[in-house]
């Protein structure tokens, strides 16, 4: 019989993830300083769309912003709530809900062969070795990748490597998938294949890219500049404005090193 409820439990209750929540990420007055530089300033955003793109120049805060989504960074000021839970309180549990794919697949894979790499995600969730191995094998079959199962990661093509990195994250069944320039090292064909793959996924997606064509079919694009939101809306409005700004700045550059 519970006649006394510790305060801690009440707090845990408040911080529970609710994957059904429409507003999957809420930023409130978020500021972030890294290495003495203010990389994000007063960001307030509510993310609820299925496909969200992030654009901006290098150093504009794109990577820092998306790193707040799975706790790789915590906000210095303000708060970030993911599926209703504040990231500061639930940091260790975030990888279960938010998958993160980086630019360079060679820096992500931990195990020497594909199947082991996929199985790692399942052992991370507590599966024993045999269950993880069987689960990985099934998962690769579901994604028509069984031919790669036994291959050494180092021998895959760049596109295959990135695909496996995405699958290695997906096997953990996150509700949100964050990708930081995943197509940057891929050729045109591999990039298109990865885009096709992303379109089929049930997960909500937040994607950073310099190649604006990948935002075809996206619901929303956020344009960052100097750590702030410069423009936020449907791709049809934001992308032309962004390109026009790039053209204007390139044309207005006053000296050779302005790049």
């Amino acid at each position, binding site marked *: 019989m519970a006649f006394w409820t510790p305060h801690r439990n009440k707090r845990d209750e408040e911080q529970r993830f609710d994957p059904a929540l429409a507003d999957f990420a809420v930023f409130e007055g978020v500021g972030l300083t890294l290495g003495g530089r203010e990389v994000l300033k007063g960001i307030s955003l509510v993310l609820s769309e299925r496909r969200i793109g992030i654009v901006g120049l290098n150093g504009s805060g794109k990577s820092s912003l998306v790193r707040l989504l799975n706790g790789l960074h915590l906000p210095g000021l303000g708060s970030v709530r993911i599926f209703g839970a504040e990231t500061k309180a639930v940091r260790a549990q975030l990888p*279960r809900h938010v998958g993160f794919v980086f630019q360079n697949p060679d820096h992500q894979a931990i195990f020497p062969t594909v199947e*082991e790499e996929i199985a790692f995600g399942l052992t991370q969730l*507590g599966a024993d070795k045999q269950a993880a191995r069987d689960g990985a094998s*099934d998962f690769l079959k579901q994604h*028509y990748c069984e031919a790669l199962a036994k291959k*050494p990661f180092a021998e895959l093509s760049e596109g295959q490597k990135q695909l496996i990195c995405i699958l290695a994250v997906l096997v*953990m069944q996150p509700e949100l998938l964050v990708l930081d320039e995943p197509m940057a090292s891929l050729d045109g064909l591999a990039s298109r294949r990865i885009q096709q793959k992303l379109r089929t*996924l049930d997960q909500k997606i937040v994607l950073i890219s310099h190649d604006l064509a990948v935002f075809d079919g996206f619901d929303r694009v956020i344009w960052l500049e100097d750590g702030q939101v410069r423009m936020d809306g449907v791709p049809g409005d934001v992308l032309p404005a962004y390109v026009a700004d790039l053209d204007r700045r390139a044309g207005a550059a006053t000296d050779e090193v302005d790049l």
Partner: protein
Amino acid sequence: MISVYLPGTSWLHRMPARLKLLLLAALSMAILPVQDPLVLGGVFAAVLAFYATLGPQGLKQVRLLRPLASLLLIIFLLHGIGGSWMEGLVAVMRLVSMVLLANLVSVTTRMDDMLEAVMPLFYPLKIFGVSPKKPALAVTLVIRFVPVLLSVYSSLAEAYRARTGKRGSWRLVAPFALQALRLSENVAEALTARGGAAGLGSHIPRTRRGDAGC
């Protein structure tokens, strides 16, 4: 001599990883004091026969000795000059047999089995509150990232050659170290993004069907 796992179902693949490692240690200790070239020749032939049982792909693995060739030659010459040529031959045969035996274990053992086999070695760390999973994972990372580091070095050497016309130089050590550090930072971040070295607990999700793939 870090080579890649060769998938298969041979008797060596089926043998438990721990037994393989124990046998490797025992055989290496046994080979070490042997001085008789005939016995060592026999050992060498037996090791080659082990490789042969893995099929043609297995025998191909012996080619991995090639990078060691110059080192072996130096050892052989040093022995020949300082002692006798027979001593040189014995030393080289002993070394080759031991390296090939060790390689046989890595070629026929999956990394996760190897991890499980070496994990007990790290159990004493529990006394200090360190999870034995961590050093075991570190071993995996070392093996996984050797080819990556080699390619980092070769791109640096290529850039150096493109501008100087010379092959690699000791000057590349500093940029290589910096890039390796940066790589390790990225890898650590990627590992954190997937729940870190300690894992996330015991929840196992349902698997969901995907629509497109390779």
